[in-house]
């Protein structure tokens, strides 16, 4: 186990480095710089600003400098927002994104698993049909459409919740629901098919044959096994929530990482783009690692690579 974690750790660092480098060169390859405004800055001012942030040096030299700073954990200053460093931006934006992200994930799991199980147990009955229609809808509708729809119905027409912004718990409701849509649908479908598969297994038939009450069969034997695949997809689900938050945050005017990343790209704020992208990658790598380890712990049939009996 320890060897495995260590190996993953090293791999993670390599991945981070590749991501950082790719992003750096891609970001600098886009035409337009951080100080190209509609109302052009006077030539001297532009030159002075570029010099101040080393943007007039060759790209490779800027890259080396950036990597050096990165090793010290310094993501650099924001070019656009001179009052904050990228570290500060990430520190205040991450809790915001994490809040709706975790809420969305929790909601998706807590609603999706029971929904999937019910659909499987009541296969081909009306509960199953409704679930199937609902999940197909939620998977197909892009989350920004869902977000706008929610805003229109619940904030504008029904005046039940605030439309946007951040700061109070009520403002987290709509964005969380918007973000939950896709993961919820995905988890429901997967749970359903996994449960169906489990219910057809030999050991279930054995349990029933032994005379165990249905409820025990389902709760004790089936569920545990049917949620195993859910753990595998937690990784991709997490990714989709992270990416989905980009648009949702923009629509609901939420000051999270996603919004800052979009602004950073539009502003050609290279340090912000790099910082948030690397941070996202870091989060993903960690969560994927946790998911892999959890999978091993939960399912005794799985062995980690390198842990096979000698």
């Amino acid at each position: 186990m320890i060897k495995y974690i260590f190996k993953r750790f090293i791999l993670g660092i390599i991945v981070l480095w590749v991501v950082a480098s790719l992003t750096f060169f891609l970001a600098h390859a886009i035409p337009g710089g951080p100080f190209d405004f509609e109302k052009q800055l006077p030539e001297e001012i532009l030159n002075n600003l570029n010099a101040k942030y080393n943007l007039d040096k060759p790209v490779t030299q800027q890259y080396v400098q950036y990597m050096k700073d990165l090793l010290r954990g310094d993501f650099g200053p924001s070019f656009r927002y001179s009052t904050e460093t990228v570290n500060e931006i990430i520190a205040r934006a991450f809790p915001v994104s994490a809040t709706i992200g975790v809420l969305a994930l929790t909601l998706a799991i807590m609603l999706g698993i029971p929904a999937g199980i019910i659909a499987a147990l009541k296969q081909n009955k009306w509960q199953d049909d409704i679930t199937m229609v609902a999940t197909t809808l939620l998977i197909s509708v892009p989350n920004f459409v869902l977000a706008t729809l929610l805003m229109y119905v619940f904030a504008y027409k029904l005046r039940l919740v605030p439309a946007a912004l951040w700061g109070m718990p009520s403002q987290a409701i709509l964005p969380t629901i918007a973000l939950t849509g896709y993961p919820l649908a995905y988890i429901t479908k997967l749970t359903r098919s996994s449960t169906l598969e489990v219910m057809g297994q030999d050991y279930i038939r054995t349990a029933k044959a032994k005379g165990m009450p249905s409820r025990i069969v389902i709760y004790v034997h089936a569920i545990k096994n049917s949620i195993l695949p859910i753990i595998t997809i937690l990784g991709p689900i997490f990714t989709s929530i992270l990416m989905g938050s980009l648009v949702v945050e923009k629509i609901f005017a939420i000051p999270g990482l996603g919004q800052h990343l979009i602004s950073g790209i539009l502003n050609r704020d290279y340090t912000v783009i790099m910082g948030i992208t690397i941070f996202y990658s870091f989060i993903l790598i960690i969560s994927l690692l946790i998911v892999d380890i959890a999978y091993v712990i939960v399912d005794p049939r799985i062995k980690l690579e390198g842990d096979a009996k000698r």
Partner: protein
Amino acid sequence: MNIKKMVILFIALTLVASFGFSAACKEKAITFNIGGDPSTIDPAKTSTVNEGAALVQIFDGLVRRNPEGELTPAIAESWEVSPDGTVYTFKLRDAKFTNGDTITAEDFVYSWTRVIDPRTGSPYGYLMTYIKGANALNSIDISSADAEAQIADAMKNLGVEAIDDKTLKVTLVAPAPYFLGLTAFPTYYPVNKKVVESNDGWADSADTYVSNGPFKLVDWKHGQKLSLVKNDQYWDKENVKLDKIDLLIIEQGSTEVTMFETGQLDIVWGWDIPITEVQRLKKEGKVGFTNQIQNRYQALNSKKPPFDDPRIRKALLISISREPIATNVMGNSVPLYAYVPKGLVDADPSKDFRDVGGNLIEENIEEAKRLLAEAGYPNGEGFPGFEILYTTNEKNKAIVEALAGMWSKNLNINNITLKNVEGRIRSQLRRAGDFQMTSQGWAGDYLDPLTFLEIFLSDSGQNDGKWSNAEYDRLIKVAQTTFDREERYESMHAAEKILMDEAGCIPFSTEEVPYMQNPKLKGILRNALAQTDLKWAYLED
């Protein structure tokens, strides 16, 4: 099923808790969306309208526009202008900064010098060129070896001087009737010399920020909002009615409209409202239009074919129908048959510059066809075509489509390509001169035709098309330096005529910026320079 019940309970509890919370923290502040997070609120370094929107509420200049639109004394109690119009002597009133320090003439001298100082890198330094010696100081190359010495030298010749604590003397290069109005612009605001000199990051957070206006900054949650409260140190605090203002940062136009209609937002930014929404909101009477002075035109690259040929430029200039573009495509604009829009005074202040100048463009398709033929492309045959650059925006797209359509129908030019690029990319292309035609607009920085006409000087940094005419340059220089009011305006009219005769650009309409505000809010000032002033605002019961 236990799990199902738990889930339902969980959701119900969350909802109840949220409602409870939201009822408890009912905001009593007036909310105003400024459209984007300020990158700085240091008056010397500010460059965007969002930043200006914040600064207007928390600072006071020498003068301020009152509800009648007139310039009234603010920090300056009174002033005298010398007979030749070049020396202004301001007497400052007793007024304090938010930290209790008295505002002195030295603070003004320090602040203005700081803007002009090339080391500060102020984007709006050029607004101070009217001050004697400012140009020389601002154009010193800071990377040269003896820059420091040059700067110290140039500062001695600067036309800003503190005669005593309460007297500020300003010497201009030439009489500029709009100079007084300029001092109400954020770049001219006074910063506290002691505070700024002792702390580089003074403008980075509310704790260290010091200003002098009707409201003061108490909290800045980046990406979210700036919280302002009434400034109890303000010299005119009896006339300030609002207690709290929250400047929100909402970038999506559709979101801001929804928030306004659900009562979450009191004052809308306006510039980002989707054009489809503007029509609906107009019908519902929810939107008004500012009196901002702004025009729309197509910029042409006079150094590259096909627009290096003035006949082709002229042909395109006079072969479009401005009326339908202004009314149908843009929505609420006014067709413009010249370059400088209405709203500016003439030599006789009771007249409008545009009225006196009249229409300088006569739409004439026959004449356009003749010009095109003369240029070598009878009936559009063989015309090389060109590309129109425009930035991502519904309105921009509609405009260029309409224009291309008109040129196709009227001149038989069918090889016009429309290219949509992002704002920053377009900026770069413009600066590099790598374009043929691009959609532009200009909003006045100060209330004088020069703010529009200066753009087309041969050496102007905003003149990307590099159209150049020696007589035009001469006339503008006259307008900038002459002491004779009549001569000033005559030169500007003559210059504008040259610009239109040679079709240096293709103007077609004004730009109308929509705004929305809570109908219970009164006393909000929106001036012709796109500033929203809340000093005199109040909530009607």
